[in-house]
């Protein structure tokens, strides 16, 4: 890949990452605009007014979950109980609109051998949702949250991993091209708990996912992986925040994306904050983008803010490159036609990431979906 730019371990001037407002009530937030830092890359005019936090639902998402021993799933009508406030009007708006919470629990000490698949299917309506994934002490599981269909959907996911628990959560955004999907994915890790959070964004007109990690005790480990593909006119945005507020925690972020076609826009923002008390922190984040054709735009902004020097390591990197003509020539000189050569290179670009995700059952699905979405252009 021809590298257009490369940032290496540069420390940006400190800024306050702590959101000013945290609330479950959308009326406590001003309406966001593109002048706000958090929304500077977001196409506000294409959010179908969800940024107002008060658009009425016109339908709901169909949710189905397979039964896996060691897990329980319920739809609870009770919204009471402790819940930390959201950080923007959209997410709080979603909370205020829902009448029930979907709760998936992985029971204590259970090591699930089969993946739990939560399928969330849209039917072209405005809908809201809240999914809680609670991983109890010393439990482990793989959870796939599969978003498909057409929808205007604001749905948050809260992932709580208790002490010693371990979970892989794969959120697939394999929407129809008309979908709008806005979500906060909030992860809280207990002592020695670990999470692998994977966001795979392939479909949707506008998808904006905000994964965040909070450590409630020392020893937590977070791996955040993202794979995204934006075709013509698609906006795929991932804005991450890892809040190292406890000692001896680790985080590793790897996001890779490809863009193809006029108006394809990808955004990756990786904010990592290492607070003064978070000694022994080890963190690294990397974002790579591959621009397949002209007319697309990849924004990539790593931010690392370090308030203590007593850490194991901290770094970030970001590269954006164009399709390499020499690779194409090489493959074509071996008889492989141009379309297939491009597919091969694109597949290769994502292949190591599929290995890191480590959930083989999604591999073919993801590969096929990307190739199908390449359409006639490539």
């Amino acid at each position, binding site marked *: *890949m021809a590298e257009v730019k490369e940032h290496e371990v540069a420390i940006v001037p400190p800024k306050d990452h702590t959101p000013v407002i945290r609330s479950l009530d959308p009326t406590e937030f001003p309406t966001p605009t593109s002048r706000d830092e958090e929304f500077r890359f977001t196409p506000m005019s294409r959010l179908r007014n969800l940024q107002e936090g008060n658009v009425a639902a016109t339908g709901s998402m169909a949710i189905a979950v397979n039964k896996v021993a060691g897990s329980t799933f319920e739809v609870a009508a009770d919204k009471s109980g402790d819940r930390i406030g959201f950080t923007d009007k959209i997410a709080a708006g979603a909370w205020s609109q829902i009448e029930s919470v979907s709760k998936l629990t992985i029971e204590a000490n259970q090591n699930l051998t089969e993946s739990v698949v939560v399928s969330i299917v849209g039917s072209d309506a405005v809908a809201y949702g809240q999914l809680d994934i609670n991983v109890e002490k010393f439990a482990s599981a793989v959870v796939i949250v599969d978003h498909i269909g057409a929808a205007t959907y604001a749905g948050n996911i809260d992932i709580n991993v208790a002490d010693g628990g371990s979970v892989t959560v794969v959120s697939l955004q394999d929407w129809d091209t008309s979908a709008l999907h806005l979500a906060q994915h909030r992860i809280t890790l207990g002592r020695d708990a670990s999470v692998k959070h994977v966001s795979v964004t392939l479909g949707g007109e506008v998808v904006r996912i905000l994964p965040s990690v909070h450590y409630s005790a020392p020893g937590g480990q977070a791996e955040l992986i993202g794979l995204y593909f934006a075709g013509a006119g698609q906006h795929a945005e991932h804005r991450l925040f890892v809040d190292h507020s406890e000692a001896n925690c680790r985080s590793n972020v790897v996001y890779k994306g490809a863009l193809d076609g006029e108006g394809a826009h990808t955004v990756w923002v990786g904010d990592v904050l290492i607070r003064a008390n978070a000694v022994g922190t080890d963190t690294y984040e990397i974002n790579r983008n591959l621009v397949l054709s002209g007319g697309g735009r990849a924004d990539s902004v790593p931010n690392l803010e370090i308030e203590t020097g007593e850490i194991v390591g901290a770094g970030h990197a970001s590269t954006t490159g164009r399709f*390499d*003509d*020499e*690779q194409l*020539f*090489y*493959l*074509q*000189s*071996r*008889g*492989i*036609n*141009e379309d*297939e*050569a491009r597919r*091969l*290179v694109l*597949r*290769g*670009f*994502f*292949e*190591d990431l599929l290995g890191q995700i480590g959930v083989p059952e999604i591999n073919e699905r993801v590969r096929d979906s990307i190739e199908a979405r390449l359409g006639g252009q490539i």
Partner: protein
Amino acid sequence: MSVLEIKGLTVQVTTEDGPKEILRGVDLTVKAGEIHALMGPNGSGKSTLAYAIAGHPKYTITGGQVTLDGQDVLEMSVDERARAGLFLAMQYPVEVPGVSISNFLRTSITAIRGEAPNLRHWIKELKESMAGLQIDPQFAERNVNEGFSGGERKRTEILQMELIHPKIAVLDETDSGLDVDALRVVSEGINRVCDKGETGVLLITHFTRILKYVKPDFVHVFYDGRIVREGGPELADDIEANGYAQFVTA
């Protein structure tokens, strides 16, 4: 028997100072079963000839013709040329991250032969060719040229030539950067293909040392974008003894 005919070929590249002519009228005929050595100093245009035959987009053909068994090669896309029977072993083979050698070769062979090879035969064929070139079988699962040494890249190029079994193979400085052992192994691979008598080879080289292992039928001296001298193997001995300077005054 296949024949590659190059007549009056002129080629230019675009530079910062405008177009620059690199090839100034190349005439060359390579037939199946023949080994031609094309020798010349650095910057003489040898590699340009190789890339122009293969169809690299950087090179603009301004005149002349190239035919393979009477078919106009210059009208073909890069992949069409390969499927027609032309093969170029590159001097600097590129890395293709995430694409395994095994996947790459299977895709290539399927394209060249027009159908997917029988899996069992294919695995046997691949193993044998790799063994012949002393390539570790585990290489099949490594990504194309990623982290390969110079010698490993060149062996992999010759592996591809063996499997593809082209009508005409252009080997662009395949000997460069090889130690003596690797040179011998690579040369044996080239000879295995040549010995079948169905492939014509154009061996481009700066040095004569590979010609101790791969015996050319014809030697062409290339200078300033054209062939300035032609002869038999004895011409290589002359170059070995007296260098290129003797041809430069022409």
